């Protein structure tokens, strides 16, 4: 493990990674580029026995892999889907995933799935509900769960605390970690009118196990988290600000819309190195251990 790791679980700093996407499969298999780690969208590999899984097996053989899901629906009032969790656990074992993450959100109720990351009301009722489910999921997966702050576009009038407080209390009560998406903090801060640095400064650095960075789309009246562009300078600056608190933490650049060539995505991700200081030595060795 990385001796520099500062987080609660001593998870290593894997360096700077990118998401594994279909359009890059051929490039990755052929060129075997030097990438610190890959993050995979868990649901894309749960129910397929075809090419995606074949590619993933080869990637997991060569690179550290982390799992990132979008359908756990940890905040839903529907029962947890244990068949989904069983498959997720199998996938984590198969890929020797360094950790498993999803989002603080709900995706559907009444047995249906909107496949969106819908916002939670930030209430005591919601906090107790989510904390209990996180504990259940962590026990089932036999690993701590990492939750990402999603971009949100709506605020509930009944919310009784800011999101950073909700996250902080949730992580304490359920002993889970945070995948801190700096772009999402920026997006939500714009949409709801709060200070993004206040959000970042309120998060317990020992609970942050991974960062996300991405581009977004400014609609004038609000910002949408579209993952279809380079990150803007303000987001990079927030990342620098947060890394100064947490130290170097595994960082991943997400690009999901209008995905350009592999080298473009990777180059954008590698910009993170400039903000991470000179603490790169030993990172790859730590990741391989």
């Amino acid at each position, binding site marked *: 493990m990385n001796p520099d790791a500062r987080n609660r679980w001593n998870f290593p700093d894997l360096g700077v990674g990118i998401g594994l996407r279909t359009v890059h499969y051929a490039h990755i298999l052929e060129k075997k580029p030097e990438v610190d780690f890959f993050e995979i969208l868990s*649901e*894309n590999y*749960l*129910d*397929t*026995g*075809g*090419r995606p*899984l*074949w590619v993933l097996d080869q990637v997991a053989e060569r690179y550290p892999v982390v799992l990132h899901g979008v*359908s756990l629906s940890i905040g*839903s*009032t529907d029962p947890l*889907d244990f068949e*989904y969790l069983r498959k997720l656990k199998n996938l984590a074992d198969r890929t020797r995933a360094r950790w498993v993450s999803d989002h603080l959100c*709900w995706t*559907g*109720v*009444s*047995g*249906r*799935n*909107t*496949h*969106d990351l*819908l916002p939670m*009301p930030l*209430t005591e*009722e*919601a906090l107790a*509900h989510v904390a209990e489910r996180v504990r259940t999921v962590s026990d089932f997966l036999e690993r701590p769960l990492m939750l990402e702050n999603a971009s949100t*576009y*709506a*605020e*509930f*009038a*009944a919310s009784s605390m800011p999101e950073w407080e909700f996250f902080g209390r949730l992580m304490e009560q359920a002993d889970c970690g945070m995948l801190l998406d700096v772009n999402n903090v920026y997006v939500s801060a714009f*949409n*709801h*009118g709060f200070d993004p640095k206040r959000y970042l400064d309120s998060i317990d650095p020992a609970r942050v196990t991974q960062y996300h960075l991405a581009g977004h789309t400014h609609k*004038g*009246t*609000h910002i*949408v988290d579209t993952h279809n562009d380079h990150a803007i300078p303000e987001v990079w600056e927030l990342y620098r600000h947060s890394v100064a608190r947490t130290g170097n933490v595994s960082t991943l650049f997400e690009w999901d819309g209008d995905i350009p060539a592999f080298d473009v995505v990777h180059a954008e991700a590698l910009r993170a190195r400039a903000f991470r200081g000179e603490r790169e030595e030993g990172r790859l060795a730590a990741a391989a251990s």
Partner: protein
Amino acid sequence: MPPPPLELPLPRLQRWMQAVIEQPGEAGEAVESAAARAELDPAEIGRVILPSKTLTSVERVGVYQGMYLMRMVEALENDFPALAHFLGGERFAELVTAYVAAHPSRSYTLNRLGGHFPEFVRSFPGIRRRAFAADLARFEDLVTEVFDAPQSPAWPAEEIARIPEDAWERAVLRPVEALRLGSFGYPVNAYLQSVKDENHDHPPTGRKATRVVIYRKSYEIWRLELGRPAYAFLSALVRGRPFGKAVAQATQGIQGPAGEQVFRWLRDWVAEGMFTRVEVSVS
């Protein structure tokens, strides 16, 4: 003074928000829909969702509502590219809107969202050339099934010679899991290929009997059109008919040395990796 917050219980709040999101049309219409009204009086929305400096409460929920159908259209366009191309973007979006209202996603994955799509297309009014469109949907659905089917090892071609001659009569060939057979009334395979090739000079789409085996080889999808006898023979084998009976059935209409023909087919199909094992019962 803003109105006091309305604290809906979490289950009701989520049912309301989902009802709004799943509703097509403008956000203002969505919050007025019967499903949304069953959970929340539209006049109370301001007590549930705060407005921002730039968006009203309804507009803020509308951000999610607007993205829902776009996501569904994108998912089905990915699985049914030829049908989407044939219908055109606007008509395809209308079809998807009606479809997900009838068959919303009930899974953690969008991979099988289109599982009911072919039968839905068959009965959806107002589609031009509906029989062709329905055939196209059924064909593309089979392609999707093959893409995701579990991987099974292919039976090696050199094993054919190891089956004793007198055992072939009762041999049962088991297909790989990633194989589907489809018989259609229209040239769906040629049409899909023209879309994949971005060839806008599409083949004629009039009635034409088309029989296709879709299978995965080396993790790639292959589509092979078959004549009627070959299709009947392969169908019999895939259904688990013993080789002798499948041959007898398939060669009824074949002129000339039928036995040689079916063995050529068999060798080709085995070489393509369509079978995973051969079972020979003890006579």
